[in-house]
């Protein structure tokens, strides 16, 4: 594909989380967690610093537990590829309030920019569609990002999946908390659950 006019990952994530209301945002291991942190810390941000391949499943567990709240998973192509089977699991469960968006730079940015499968042969939108996620789309413009963003609050029409081709530039890391217990308990607290 053409490398011209690729999207700025931080602009994409800022748009997705602009009017989040009660939405819970899950970031995959790597740059997508920094992008979510860059959009502003929030007590419903689920940052991942490990567990590669688990972002979509964490989103599914949250979505099933909180069916009235929008849950959006924002992850990278490498993280998505490692948990590719989870798209089949989401397709089977059909959670109406879950949205997944892959920031696809066609590379493993955290480890030196090695090429991922999405640059050459793997079509994530095709995979998502074939797994039963009916609303699966490729995104290449900010207008399409805005369009996708406007659907996130609708908890009756998911699951939905999008892959946005983004610029491969390594941006300055914006570091979120790395304390998993704090991150999870903060989300639980915001939902009204007290500690054990």
């Amino acid at each position, binding site marked *: 594909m053409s490398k011209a006019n690729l999207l700025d990952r931080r602009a994409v994530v800022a748009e997705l989380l602009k009017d989040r209301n009660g939405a819970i945002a899950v970031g995959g291991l790597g740059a997508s967690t920094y992008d979510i942190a860059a959009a502003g810390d929030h007590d419903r941000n*689920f940052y991942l610093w*490990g567990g590669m391949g688990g972002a979509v499943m964490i989103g599914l567990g949250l979505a099933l537990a909180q069916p009235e709240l929008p849950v959006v998973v924002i992850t990278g192509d490498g993280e998505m590829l490692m948990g590719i089977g989870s798209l089949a699991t989401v397709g089977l469960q059909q959670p109406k309030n879950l949205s997944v968006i892959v920031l696809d730079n066609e590379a493993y940015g955290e480890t030196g920019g090695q090429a991922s499968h999405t640059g050459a042969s793997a079509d994530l939108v095709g995979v998502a569609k074939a797994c039963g996620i009916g609303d699966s789309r490729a995104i290449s413009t900010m207008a399409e990002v805005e369009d996708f963003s406007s659907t996130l609050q609708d908890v009756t029409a998911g699951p939905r999946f999008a892959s946005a081709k983004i610029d491969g530039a390594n941006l300055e890391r914006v570091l979120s908390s790395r304390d998993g217990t704090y991150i999870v308990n903060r989300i639980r607290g915001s939902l009204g659950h007290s500690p054990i």
Partner: protein
Amino acid sequence: MHARAETAASWPDEIFSILQRFEVRQVPYVPDAGHSQLIERVLGSSTMRGIALTTEEEGVALLAGAWAGGQRGVLLMQSSGVGNCINMLSLVQIFRLPFLTLVTMRGEWGEFNPWQVPMGSNTQGILELSGVKVLRASHPEEVREVVEAGASQAYNACTPTAVLLSQRLIGAKVFTK
């Protein structure tokens, strides 16, 4: 050793009652013959959601999301699935999850298939190295007590726990008559 029974045992129903009492809501699983009766009960339940997985590690991540969202869950799998979970089990320690898994054992007690033995022999060690406490039930009459203890320490004390359901309990899979 004894072969797998043709008639339904009562211990899977006892496990189901314990899960109900602890208000378990999400039950991710990779199918296993030893869990088939329990999986049927879960899929027929109005309070629990059975969630079929493509690989067991998905279940660990799912339970992290469920806990963050305020729900308890339990992962049902076979001993070979424990190997598929290793890296994802970091989440159990990192989030201090009330993690409970019920593992049906293969590769022991009259096993016919040698391919089950390497993972079956290492299941307990791998779980313990991953920070999960291991309990075991080998006889039908002890299942209720052991699963109750496991659920109690997992959910009340956030102590990650695996209950191994021995092949001695389930009966060895018969390949030839």
